[in-house]
C-alpha cells in the first residue's frame, strides 16, 4: 500500500471514528457536568464530579434495574441458545419429511413484525399471569428464527461424518447433540449469545408493556422513566444513567467484537 493511501485511510478512519463516537463521548462528558454547565452548552466538563452518578442511582433504583436487565438478558440468552440449537440440530442432522417446509416456516417468521403480534401477545402474557414477572419478559423470546438460522449454518459445517461416526459407535442422538455439536459450535454459540444478550438488554417496547413494578423493570425502561421524570431538571443525571446503561453492553461488545463478526457473517450469508 502506498504511503499516501495509507495515510488517507488513517485520516478517514480517525475522522469517521470521531464523528461516530461523538454522541457516546458527549454523553460521557455531560454525565460529569453540573446543571449550569449543561445549560451553557459546554462540550467538556470543568471537573469530573461523580455527583450525577450518585443522583442517578438515588433517583431511580438503577442498580436494581441493572440486575433485572442482567437476569432477563442472561435468561433469554440461555433460552435462545438452547431452543435455537435444538431446532437447528433437527434441521441439520435429522432427516424427515417436510423438514424444508418447516424450515421455511421458521424463516418466514422473521418477516412477521413483532408489533403486529403485540396486542394478542400482551393478552396471552396476561392470561398466563406473566405480567410483572421474568417469565413474561423472557419466554416469548426463546424461539428465534435468526438464531436457528445462524446455528443451522454453523451445524452444516460440521462434517456429517462426525454424526455417522457416532451412529456407528452407538451414541444416542441427544448425546451427540450435547457432547459433540454444541462444544464444536462454541464460536457460533458465543456469537449468538452476545447477540441475544445485546438485543435483550436493549429491548424496549415489550418490557414497557409488561412491567409496571420496580421489581422486574429493566434498565431501559428505567432510563425512559428517568427521562420523563428528570429531563428539564437535570440532563447530567439522565446522561449518567445513560452511561450506566450502555457501559455493560459496550464492554461486552468490545470483548466479543471479533467473535461476533465472525459468527454473524458466517450465519448470515453462507
Amino acid at each position: 500500500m502506498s504511503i499516501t493511501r495509507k495515510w488517507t485511510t488513517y485520516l478517514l478512519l480517525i475522522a469517521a471514528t470521531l464523528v461516530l463516537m461523538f454522541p457516546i463521548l458527549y454523553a460521557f462528558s455531560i454525565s460529569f457536568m453540573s446543571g449550569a454547565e449543561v445549560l451553557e452548552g459546554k462540550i467538556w466538563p470543568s471537573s469530573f464530579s461523580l455527583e450525577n452518578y450518585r443522583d442517578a442511582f438515588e433517583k431511580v433504583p438503577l442498580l436494581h434495574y441493572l440486575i433485572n436487565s442482567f437476569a432477563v438478558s442472561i435468561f433469554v440468552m440461555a433460552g435462545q441458545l438452547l431452543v435455537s440449537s435444538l431446532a437447528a440440530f433437527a434441521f441439520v442432522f435429522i432427516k424427515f419429511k417436510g423438514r424444508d417446509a418447516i424450515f421455511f416456516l421458521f424463516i418466514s417468521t422473521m418477516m412477521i413484525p413483532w408489533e403486529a403480534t403485540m396486542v394478542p401477545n400482551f393478552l396471552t402474557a396476561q392470561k398466563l399471569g406473566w405480567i410483572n414477572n421474568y417469565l413474561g419478559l423472557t419466554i416469548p423470546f426463546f424461539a428465534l428464527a435468526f438464531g436457528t438460522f445462524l446455528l443451522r449454518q454453523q451445524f452444516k459445517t460440521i462434517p456429517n461424518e462426525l454424526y455417522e461416526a457416532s451412529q456407528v459407535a452407538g451414541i444416542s442422538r441427544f448425546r451427540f447433540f450435547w457432547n459433540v455439536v454444541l462444544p464444536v459450535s462454541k464460536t457460533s454459540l458465543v456469537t449468538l449469545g452476545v447477540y441475544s444478550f445485546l438485543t435483550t438488554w436493549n429491548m424496549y417496547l415489550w418490557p414497557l408493556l409488561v412491567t409496571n413494578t420496580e421489581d422486574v423493570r429493566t434498565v431501559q425502561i428505567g432510563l425512559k422513566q428517568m427521562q420523563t421524570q428528570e429531563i428539564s431538571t437535570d440532563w447530567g443525571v439522565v446522561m449518567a444513567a445513560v452511561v450506566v446503561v450502555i457501559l455493560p453492553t459496550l464492554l461486552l461488545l468490545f470483548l466479543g467484537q471479533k467473535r461476533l463478526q465472525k459468527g454473524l457473517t458466517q450465519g448470515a450469508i453462507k
Partner: protein
Amino acid sequence: NSTGSSEAQETKKTASGKTEVVFWHAMSGDLEKSLNKIVDEYNKSQDKVEVKPVFQGTYEEAQTKFNTVAGTKDAPAIMQTFEVGTKFMIDSGKIQPVQKFIDQDHYDTSQWEKNISSYYQVDGKQYSMPFNSSTPVLVYNKDAFKKAGLDPENPPKTYDELKAAAKKLTEKQGNKTSQYGFSILNYGWFFEELVASQGGLYVDHENGRKGDAEKAVFNGKEGQNAFNLINDMYKEGTFYNVGQNWDDMRAAFQSKKIAMFLDSSAGIKTLVDNAPFEVGVSDLPVPKEEDRQGVAIGGASLWMSKGISDETSKAAWDFMKYLATPEVQAKWHVESGYFAVNPKAYDQEIVKKEWRKYPQLKVTVDQLHKTKSTPATQGALISVFPESRQKVVTGMESLYQGVKPKEALDQAAKETNRALEVGNQK
C-alpha cells in the same frame, strides 16, 4: 362486556404484615418527591397499611398501563387518573366508585371544595377521590416585563393585551429571536381551558354530561378564538413553539427563551423556586374581559380498582381519607401548587405562611373560586378524550405549518367525531 371477575383477589401483605396498597401515579420531579414524603408519613403514622407508590410515566402513559392490566391481579389498588380520563374510567367497569365507601363510612363530603368534587360526580355519584386539582394560569417573567417597559404587576388579561405585551417582550438579535413573548404547550388541556374560560363547550349534550357525547363542538367561535390567537402570534413572531414536553416548556421559560406561557398551577412552586428571576402568575387570558367564565379544573383524582380484596379496598380508602385531611392537603398545596381539596386546609398556618412567601399560589386558588359553574367550566365527559387531545395537538402543530386555524380545528373536530363514533359502539 367486562372480563373482570367478581372474585376478589387475595390481599397482599408486606413482610411486616401490613396490607399492601399499590398506588400508581404520574407525579414526576418535585411533585413525586412531595408525594413520596406524604406517603411515607402515612405509612409511618399507622401499622396496618403500607402504601407503595409507583411512577408510571405521564398521565397518558399511566392510563395506558392501567388499561392493560385493569381487572387483573397486576392492577394497582389506587390509580391516579387525569381529569379527562374520568369517563373512560367509569365506562371501563374496572373501578369501584368511592361513593360506596363514602356511604359505608358516612364520610362527610361537604368538607370538599364543590368546584372540584363535582367534576368527578356523575349522576350524583362520586366516582373518584379528588386529589390533585389544578387550573391553568398565565406565568410570566417579571424581570422581562420591567425590561420591556411593562408593568409587572399588571399582566395582560385579554388576548389583545397579551399580543401587545408579547410584542414588546420579543427580543431579537439580528434575525435570531433570543426571547419570545409567549408560548403555549402543544397539549390539549390548554386548548380545552381556553375554550371553557369563554364558556365554550367541547362536545355536545352539555359537554357529555347529559348523555353520551356524539359530536365535537369545540370548533365553534370559542375554539377559533384560541386557535386564531396562536396563529396570529406565531405569524407575528412573538410566539414560540415549545413542542409537547412540559419540561421543555418550563426549561424554555427558565432559560428566558419565553417571557410568558401557560402552565398548570401544579408547576408553579417549582418554577418560582428555580427561576433566576421573579415569576408572576395571573389568570388565564380571555378574548375580552366580559367573556370570562372562569376555568375548569385540571389535574387528577384517585380511583379505586375493582377486584381487589375488601381488606385492600378498606386500606386504600383509609389512605384516600388521609390524603383529604386538611393537614395533608395544606402541605400538598404549598409544596405542589395543587389546590386543597379540603378548603379548611387554607386555614392551616403553613398555608398562610407560604402564601405570604409565594403570593403566586393564591392566584390559582382565587381563579377557581371566581369560576361560574356551568357545563363549560365543569369540563367535558368523553371516553375518547385522550385520543381527541391528540387530534387537537396535531391541529395546534399544523398551525405552525401554515394551515388555517379554522381548517385545523375542523379537522380535529372531524377526527374526534370519528373517535366518538367508534367509541360509542363499544
